């Protein structure tokens, strides 16, 4: 039933979804690259980012100046929300993970779960247990590209994600700080000996990852129309799956994994079952971890024991 009325829109939807997953998975993958830890609380940063974005949007939309200037509105909302999310991410690292750096690997994970529980409940209690509608800033316009229909929000999400990913690639490979991140990632002890302040680099990594997660949160709000205190978990686990699929610790891998997962999920929901759509992601996660823990593009063949 390769019906083009379904397959093209599903592909476009999958790519959009994948772009969001990819953005979130960058946070997982960068942190894993540097500290070899799963930042379980990253999903809550996505949620928090979505809420920061919501506040900023509703605040700025009170001014006619911003109402008339979409570009300026979006730029200021995204930048401010990135800063706040980034600071939140770095603060979590400083308070909840750094004191545990010398212990075995399960302790930071348990701490991260604690942070996750804390943040979710904090947002639920201080804001609302209800889903919050997201203001639609975009007129929903459909564009026809040959056989493919794509709407304005989808284009926006894909462009924003790719923009950030390219910027990150450039930053990591071409700037001094980026190279320092790479060095820390490949061997933290050596990086220290080379005079890199690894603590600040780790904070920076958390900041960048969280900022991108915050952006993804806003995009989720815009694409699906509502956000909620417990929304992070699903996106988090799927983005983590994307990171693992692409090869954890590997930035281009995370992007590849994100897009693949998004498309798979979209097609799976359409052709197999929408009730089981979350199961696909979990099955991929389990299969990859069991049979090819290095993922598609992963380099780390074996961990030092």
């Amino acid at each position, binding site marked *: 039933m390769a019906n083009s009325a379904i397959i093209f829109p599903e592909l476009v939807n999958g790519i959009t979804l994948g772009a969001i997953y990819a953005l979130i998975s960058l946070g997982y993958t960068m942190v894993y690259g540097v500290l070899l830890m799963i930042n379980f609380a990253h999903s809550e940063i996505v949620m928090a980012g979505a809420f920061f974005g919501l506040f900023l949007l509703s605040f700025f939309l009170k001014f006619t100046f911003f109402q008339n200037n979409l570009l300026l509105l979006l730029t200021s909302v995204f930048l401010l929300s990135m800063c706040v999310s980034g600071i939140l991410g770095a603060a979590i690292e400083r308070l909840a993970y750094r004191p*545990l750096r010398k212990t075995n690997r*399960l302790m930071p994970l348990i701490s991260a779960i604690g942070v996750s529980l804390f943040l*979710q409940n904090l947002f639920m209690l201080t804001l609302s247990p209800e889903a919050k509608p997201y203001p639609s800033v975009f007129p929903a316009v459909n564009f026809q590209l040959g056989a493919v229909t794509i709407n304005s929000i989808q284009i926006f999400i894909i462009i924003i994600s790719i923009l950030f990913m390219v910027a990150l690639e450039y930053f990591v490979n071409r700037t001094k700080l980026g190279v320092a991140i790479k060095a820390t990632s490949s061997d933290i002890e050596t990086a220290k000996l080379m005079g890199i302040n690894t603590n600040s680099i780790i904070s920076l990594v958390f900041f960048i990852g969280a900022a991108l997660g915050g952006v993804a949160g806003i995009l989720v709000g815009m694409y699906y129309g509502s956000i909620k205190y417990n929304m992070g978990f699903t996106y988090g686990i799927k983005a983590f799956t994307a990171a693992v699929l692409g090869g954890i610790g590997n930035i281009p891998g995370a992007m590849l994994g994100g897009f693949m997962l998004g498309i798979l999920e979209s097609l799976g929901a359409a052709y197999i079952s929408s009730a089981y759509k979350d199961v696909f992601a*979990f099955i991929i996660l*389990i299969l990859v971890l069991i049979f090819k823990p290095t993922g598609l593009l992963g380099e780390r063949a074996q961990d030092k024991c």
Partner: protein
Amino acid sequence: MLKKAKLLEIFFIVIIALAAYLLHLKQEFYLVHILSLAGIYVLLALGLNMVIGYTGLLDLGFIAFYAIGAYSAALLSSKGFSFWAILPISILITCAFRFLLGKPLMRLRGDYLAIVTLGFGEITRLILNNWDALTNGPKGLPRVGETIRPITLFSFHLNSEISYFYLILFFVAASIFAIRRIERSKIGRAFVAIREDEIAAEAMGINTSYIKLLSFTISAVFAALAGVIYAHWIGFVSPESFSFWESVFLVCMVVLGGMGNILGIIFGVILLVGLPEFLRITLGGEFVLYRMLLFGLLMVIMTILRPQGIIPEKRRALELKD
């Protein structure tokens, strides 16, 4: 010394049983109920402790096996099986699942294992929610027209709250007894050795994958036990009771109470189940809203300041033979 400690424990169990009976006489059914609930959580936490506390494997999907136990019990009961027949069957089914799902995971590193078990937990919940033919989806079991048969013991029907509490207390005591014995055998020592240093354990001739799988499978016995009792006791099972956060709640109990220490585990359960209920009565419902927030915060603080838990593990001195 040993004898004295044992007597004290028996004395303590008798005291609890008597106190529960007094509550029952005073018609404080709610408190008896909370005691039973705490008992179920103790069973679960004891099982999870075997994996996390002794063997050092972080399992974030433990609740799935509780669910399998509860669902298999509900299904079998509506087919006419009695509690005493269901108990071994459900335990067997749950352990078989645990064994088969656990087998490929034993090579995985700790944090990956945690994530994969989380995945299994969520898949189980989604299947319970969607496989209508077997699980009746979100509508839960038993189906319309079916019931879960009450537990009978020597032609005596257990239907009051206090009788369930005694049943649970019995199984908790039996479980603690069994776990002690395992803990004090070469198998228990092998679990701990793996937690302490897996590579060294393997170099000491311990087949770590096999022993880890053993720990994984034995822990399912307690999950199944808790599940079967829960299904009979509440009389209804549905997927909402088996969410991921329930697993986290259990991990929280084990971590806060003290990994690897049975008393610590019991304390963790009292802290997380008993205390909120106690405070709900004294401080009113408002507090309950904040409890998860507090537990999250506590988890972070504890891992940093007191990773061994409130009541840390204590190795038992062995009697020496010269």
